[in-house]
């Protein structure tokens, strides 16, 4: 049994401990006022505090703070070039922020340069890149099995079975020996998703999962994201400019505008937002506020 509170993570459950009804009321009151691991009964898996990231000509992320809960599907929307991809690349520390904390499973990787610590934390992530980022020189099979070789102790003899399972999960068959250049954009994204899923990550990050796809493939990718979350209960972060997709699939939607999250709320509340940026974005996306 896993304890629902992060502060008791790793503590072996025994009779009467941890308490089944959550923390004492005083603690609950304190935690509801303070953002952090004890907010209510929810367990925050990824905690971001005062994140700042800038490039030579632009301050992209300004003091961003957000908590992502266990099993949540959190979407970040915003116009192109606003810093959405920068945000998720900071979460997995492909980009180093200027300041701020990124706490994943209790480990702050915000500013660390310890490659081994980063590698350990990255192991719990799957990442779907915008263009798939499949390795050109490897076949589909080798691409999907890549993570198994470097991240797990699974014997080589089992790779074939796992790869077949994951490819079937994303609706692909008989593509093992093809090279990425022989695949369509949609297929590349699906193979990339299978590659991320092969190592059974705890978190999965999607960078523009539906960009450049036709409506049929878009619908399929949307179903895939929901399927993955339902079947494997993975904490998911989706970055997209497709507001329709974000509102349909997410538990919470955040709007990134001018380097800040101007709105973070559940889809129903998001639609009613009075924020000027959100309103404009919804109008441009031709979405009704109802």
């Amino acid at each position: 049994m896993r304890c629902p509170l992060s502060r008791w993570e790793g503590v072996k459950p025994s009779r009467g401990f941890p308490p089944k009804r959550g923390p004492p009321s005083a603690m609950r009151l304190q935690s509801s006022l303070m953002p952090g691991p004890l907010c209510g009964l929810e367990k925050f898996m990824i905690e971001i505090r005062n994140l700042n990231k800038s490039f030579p000509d632009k301050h992209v992320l300004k003091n961003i703070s957000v908590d992502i809960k266990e099993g949540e599907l959190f979407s970040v929307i915003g116009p192109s070039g606003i810093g959405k991809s920068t945000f998720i690349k900071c979460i997995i520390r492909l980009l180093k922020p200027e300041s701020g904390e990124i706490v994943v499973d209790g480990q702050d990787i915000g500013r660390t340069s310890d490659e081994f610590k980063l590698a350990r934390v990255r192991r719990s992530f799957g990442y779907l890149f915008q263009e798939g980022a499949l390795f050109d020189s490897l076949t589909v099979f080798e691409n999907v099995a890549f993570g198994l070789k470097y991240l797990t102790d699974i014997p080589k003899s089992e790779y074939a079975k796992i790869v077949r399972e994951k490819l079937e999960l994303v609706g692909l068959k008989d593509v093992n020996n093809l090279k990425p250049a022989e695949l369509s954009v949609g297929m590349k994204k699906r193979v990339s998703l299978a590659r991320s899923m092969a190592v059974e990550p705890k978190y999965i990050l999607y960078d523009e999962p539906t960009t450049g796809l036709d409506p049929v493939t878009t619908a399929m990718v949307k179903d895939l994201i929901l399927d993955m979350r339902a079947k494997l209960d993975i904490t998911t972060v989706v970055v997209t400019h497709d507001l329709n997709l974000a509102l349909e699939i997410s538990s919470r939607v955040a709007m990134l505008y001018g380097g800040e999250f101007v709105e973070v709320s559940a889809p129903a509340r998001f639609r009613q937002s009075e924020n000027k940026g959100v309103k404009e974005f919804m109008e441009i996306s031709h979405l009704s506020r109802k």
Partner: protein
Amino acid sequence: MFGRRPIHLRSYVYFMKHRFTEYVGREFMSLAETMGTVALMLKSVVFWLFRSKFEVREAAKQSVKIGVDSLVVTALTSFFTGMVISLQTGQSSKNLFNEPLYIGTMVAFSMLKELGPVLTSIVVAGRAGAVVTAEIGTMKVTEQIDALYTLGTNPTRYLLVPRYIAFMITLPLLTVFADFIGILGGCIVGVVKLGIPVSVFMEDIYTRIEVADFMHGFIKTFFFAFMIATVSCYKGLNTKGGAEGVGKSTTEAVVTSMVLVMVLDYFISATLVSVGI
């Protein structure tokens, strides 16, 4: 009315002085940044070379690729170089002494000490170095390098270390091959065009060329291989701006490697000569 405004000499000098200082400062900062990045990359290569499980398969694959890619061009280059040295030396010798003297010695000396290592390095830089830069550069702009990080693999371990090892193994071997082919070319011209018997040509080599002469060229190739690998990998990893960026990085890598081969050649030769090799 519309005449040009006069340029005051003092303001012109002031302007030029500041622009010049700014330009020099910027270039100096850029050079320092490059040196720092290269130093960090080398530190990472050394770290992963000894720290991790060695990617034998990848290193073997890269060695075969670099060797096969460059073999034919190396053979052609050194064969014709050997031939032209033999021809020119023979003709000059005939003009001076009325007969071709020391042709074998000249050909072997030039090939083993200078032309073999330098020409092979230039061919490898142009052929395999370009491929390495383009490959890593493409991986960089298509986020494949980032994908490596997310799959628990350090790019230095998976991409750089095998390529360094491949260059360090392949270039010396190719140089030995080029030396042999060059001498063969020289011998053919000597026999066919200059009328020297094969035995005389070979006798020239055996009596006047020492193992140290071969070692002089052979040692240099390790430095060249290291330098070509460093330049190719650095340029590839620092590629920006899509397909255009890949092209730019590749060109820069080849030009830089070729120039550095020449520059390094002098300094290494001077050092080796001073220690008696």
